[in-house]
């Protein structure tokens, strides 16, 4: 049925791209940060993380004051870990999965065809948010510790060194990165969040049950239970063995999902 022969390429048929620079990585990170806050869902999630953390700390303060308990900065940071530990991974899941749910990945990947570069930019953006969240959370804890001191009349006790700040940071970077990994694995917000919560709240219980019931499993459990391995980060002061537990279990439950998830995003047909 072909009627007209194909014409030979006309002059000007080639595209001169020599004057165009690739999109710099820093610009992609900036855009990804913007995308986390420029929708109502994203903005409110960020606000909720700060608001819920503040609320939990204020409740803690009022309980402590009314019961006449004696606390220090560490007690506030432990309280802060709970809401942030739940909400930051949700943000991590959504930063990836919303691109699929809202199908914006089609636009994102046409403006930057290197998917690896985009995945790394997204990951960097979520890490920056995690760091910012920890900074805000620590600042809130410090403020409330001061308020506690002035209202209770007790001496204000800090007792929180640089390593402790580093441990808290590590804890939330792990949480955010896990959420990010599950977002990539499922490319679906609901599935990513549900599976993340099963993984982070149900799995540790099962591991402990298994360890209690089976002797051989009790020896294995510390090496494969990422949740339990992170607990020393909250208390501070990790031993060499605890670091080893963290590294091995993290390899299984964080690095592996990240790798498989990234592989999926790099390969997935973007619909």
């Amino acid at each position, binding site marked *: 049925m072909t009627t007209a022969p194909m014409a030979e390429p006309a002059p000007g048929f080639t595209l001169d791209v020599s004057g*165009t620079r690739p999109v710099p990585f820093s610009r992609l990170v900036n855009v990804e940060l913007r995308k986390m806050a420029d929708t109502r869902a994203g903005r409110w999630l960020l606000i909720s993380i700060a608001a819920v953390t503040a609320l939990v700390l204020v409740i803690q303060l009022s309980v402590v004051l009314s019961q006449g308990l004696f606390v220090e900065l560490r007690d506030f940071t432990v309280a802060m870990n709970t809401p942030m530990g739940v909400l930051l991974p949700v943000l991590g899941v959504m930063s990836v999965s919303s691109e699929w749910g809202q199908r914006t990945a089609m636009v994102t990947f046409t403006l*930057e065809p290197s998917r690896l570069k985009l995945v790394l930019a997204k990951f960097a953006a979520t890490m920056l948010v995690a760091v910012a969240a920890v900074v805000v959370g620590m600042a809130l804890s410090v403020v409330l510790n001061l308020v506690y001191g002035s209202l209770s009349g007790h001496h204000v006790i800090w007792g929180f060194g640089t390593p402790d700040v580093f441990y808290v940071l590590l804890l939330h970077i792990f949480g955010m990165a896990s959420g990010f990994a599950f977002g990539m694995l499922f490319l679906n917000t609901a599935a990513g969040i549900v599976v993340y919560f099963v993984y982070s709240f149900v799995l540790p219980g099962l591991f402990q049950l298994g360890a209690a019931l089976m002797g051989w499993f009790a020896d294995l459990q510390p090496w494969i239970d990422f949740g339990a391995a992170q607990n020393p980060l909250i208390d501070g002061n990790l031993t060499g063995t605890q670091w080893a537990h963290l590294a091995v279990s993290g390899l299984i439950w964080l690095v592996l999902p990240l790798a498989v998830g990234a592989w999926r995003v790099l390969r997935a047909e973007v619909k």
Partner: protein
Amino acid sequence: MIKVEGLTKTYGGFTAVDDVDFVCQPGTVTGFLGPNGAGKTTTMRIMVGLTPASRGRVTIGGHHYKDIPNPGRHVGVLLDASAQHAGRTGREVLTVGARTMGLPDSRVDEMLELVSLDAKESKRRVRNYSLGMRQRLGIAHALLGEPSVLILDEPANGLDPAGIRWMRGLLKEYAERGGTVLLSSHLLHEVEIIADEMILIGRGRIVARGDKKSLLAGAGTTATFVTALDNEALAAGLKDKGFAVSSAGEGLRVETEPVEVGRVAADRSLVLTDLRAAEEGLEDLFLSLTSDSQRDHLTEGPAA
């Protein structure tokens, strides 16, 4: 500018795109026509690297899409106007694009003005946009980086008649300035007016290509609509010459070219009030060429 060579995409046993070859020249509009599911979208997705090809290749200006640095500055793409975050405002969608490409925010205002989205509309969330507004936003997004190539999938879908006319003017002018345009449609009339070259695809294969004239010539059948003051006398004259005549509306439909009808009228001194080629020739051709790939076999009749 766009060169598609031996492109094939299979999903398991299903061949979505089957050995497709075509070229889009700078300064022209190429219409990519076919029924839904014919393989247009898959071909365009492969072009911009969203879907890997099973065989064959596509180059844009001699490059694979993934090798074009900051591709938004060279190739404007609109694959699905609804593929935007429903919670972002129209302005924000363009701002994210402009920031990625490294363009000033003033470019966003220029594009909003170009596609006639006013300040109030641009601040509304895409969720509240009509399909027509989403298409305008998508066209604005494709044009953001001042690309020299445009790849648009069903851009007229959801536009009102005034919008379709606006888009035609925009693309025509874009091509006249040397740009390359590839646009797809499942509706012939949307494309035939502006396309310099048409590529008809059905069931993943190219079934015909060329400009409107050569496609019609290839179709071989021509018909004429004619109205005379005395239709009966004209009908008798035409039948004497051996042309098939049937009544159509106020006039007649004759299975020959307008010039033959004019001759008969002149010979018999009959006054004509209307004489024109039956325009549905191309549409018939389009439907017949692609009918075996339509999802619904509506009027196939008994098998021969």
